[in-house]
């Protein structure tokens, strides 16, 4: 068991698009360990994929607000995910309770989201560019916060170790439980919020801004609110992941937007029966995030080099994005053939 557990920890730091700048990058070692004890490791890798998927799903829920509700592809999330992790790690090392550290990560993400939104609304910088600017700037901010590129949490209290003191489960199971609690709680809160008057105004802003204004909605304020909530959740997710993996890294956010989009789209394409109700759509995004991690775990087990992981993710998203169009074309061509 100890050896298997060891391996699972390695998958954590090596497998999740955050392998680039980590000084304790063990990807080479893990691959060897993986070949020696395959059956056990596959199980653990799957457990780990589920747990990671749920923690990253908090980010997918945040991205859902910007990408699906406001229909903005907000690239600031690459920066805010790392920001959440950096704030959390720095505060924990400084002696703060890890639960409070989560709250500060959330607030930090909200501020960063507001910066993007203000550039977009008051300065009329296109949302894509505004997001890129925030993402770029946050790299320096994150370096300033940590004072170095990586902060290990070895021997520090995290929400995972604290929960582990109370609950008689393995680290993976605790990760899983924490992920479930956050995802279920957030889906409930988001379902409620987007059913309120303000929530509906926010949805209308993304759907048809002209109509929203004609019905008295300050659409600029709604964009600010939406990006603020979205980036708050993304930073919260970054904090959860950092605490779970036991370190924060300035590079841990690279590719976050792609993973977020992948989760949403995979969820929508694969779990097509989860439609209609808003809460079900959110659930699909969460399941998409889990499935994304499972896919990644499988290709790593099959021997994909961790350095190729980002290329794989990019291709995966490109494929997932084009599925609806290809499906339409396929249908159309079949109809044509039937007609002939």
């Amino acid at each position, binding site marked *: 068991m100890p050896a298997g557990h060891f391996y699972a920890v390695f998958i954590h730091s090596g497998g999740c698009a955050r392998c680039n700048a980590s000084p304790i990058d063990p990807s080479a070692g893990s691959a060897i360990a993986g070949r020696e004890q395959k059956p056990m490791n596959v199980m653990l890798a799957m457990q780990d994929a589920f747990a990671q998927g749920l923690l990253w799903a908090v980010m997918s829920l945040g991205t859902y607000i910007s990408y699906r509700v406001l229909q903005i592809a907000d690239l600031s999330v690459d920066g805010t995910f790392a920001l959440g992790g950096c704030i959390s790690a720095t505060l924990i090392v400084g002696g703060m309770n890890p639960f409070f550290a989560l709250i500060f990560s959330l607030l930090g993400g909200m501020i960063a989201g507001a910066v993007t939104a203000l550039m977009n609304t008051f300065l009329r910088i296109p949302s894509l560019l505004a997001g890129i600017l925030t993402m770029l700037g946050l790299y320096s901010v994150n370096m300033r916060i940590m004072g170095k590129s990586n902060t290990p949490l070895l021997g520090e209290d995290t929400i995972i170790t604290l929960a582990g003191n109370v609950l008689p489960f393995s680290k993976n199971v605790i990760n899983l439980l924490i992920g479930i609690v956050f995802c279920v709680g957030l889906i409930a809160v988001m379902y409620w919020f987007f059913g*309120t008057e*303000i929530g*509906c105004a926010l*949805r209308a802003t993304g759907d*048809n801004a002209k109509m929203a204004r*004609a*019905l008295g909605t300050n659409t600029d304020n709604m964009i600010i609110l939406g990006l603020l909530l979205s980036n708050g959740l993304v930073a919260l997710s970054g904090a959860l992941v950092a605490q779970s993996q036991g370190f924060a890294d300035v590079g841990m956010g690279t590719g976050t937007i792609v993973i977020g989009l992948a989760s949403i789209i995979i969820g929508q394409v694969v779990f097509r029966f989860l439609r209609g109700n808003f809460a079900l759509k959110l659930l699909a995004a969460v399941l998409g995030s889990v499935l994304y991690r499972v896919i990644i775990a499988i290709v790593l087990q099959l021997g994909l080099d961790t350095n190729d992981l980002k290329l794989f993710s990019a291709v995966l998203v490109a494929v997932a994005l084009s599925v609806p169009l290809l499906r339409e074309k396929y249908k159309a061509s079949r109809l044509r053939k039937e007609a002939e």
Partner: protein
Amino acid sequence: MLKLTGVNMTFKPGSVNEKRALIDVNLVIHPGDFVTVIGGNGAGKSTLLNVVAGVCNNESGRIVLDGIDITRKPEYKRAAYLGRVFQDPMMGTAAGMIIEENLAMAKRRGKRRSLRWEITREERAEYCRELAKLGLGLEERLQDKVGLLSGGQRQALTLLMATLQKPKMLLLDEHTAALDPKTARKVLQLTQDLVAQEQLTTLMITHNMKDALRVGNRLIMMYEGRVIFDVEGEEKRSLDTRDLMEKFEMVSGGEFANDRMMLG
């Protein structure tokens, strides 16, 4: 009462493409007036509506609605006073939201939005009653996405939404132009019914001269950013399309433009 005093509007000022869309427009619309606006392409009809609605800010002049100076108020604040229907049936409703959510948005036009739940049971009953009046069977489809409706249905819904919360003024920007003739007639009839029922002050742009003559109690003709003709009551009723064409020919100096306006 809507009062426009010396309103000017120029697009792209100082550039080669400078376009003076409104030139010294003075206009008073009395409570209960149903004004139809006609004019060729680029005459400034839509700009007139847009400066009233706050979509674009007039560069000079004042706009006063029921004693409130709205000249510098942003569009979303003016929405409290104005019901609007656009030419494009897709513009007036949110396609991804269901019918009752759209109506609930309209019900809260100009009101402060809070964290209360958007739709209450009493409201749903009210929406059912109002939708039934349209006679399109939409009262059975409260939970359907608006994107599933036809252009005519969406335009009728937009009209209902614009009047659900009685506006100080109803602005209609060629709201039947994009519909097929039969649906257009239906929507126009619906417009007349709603306006009569609620005694709404209305400003309606149209390309159809017959409609402009048949509907409303007052008619305004615009040409190159100016109001060039303004008749009401008995005088308007006695006009026919030939009179309007002659009038148009006179002011445009015999330039019988190849214009959609002539097709009416």
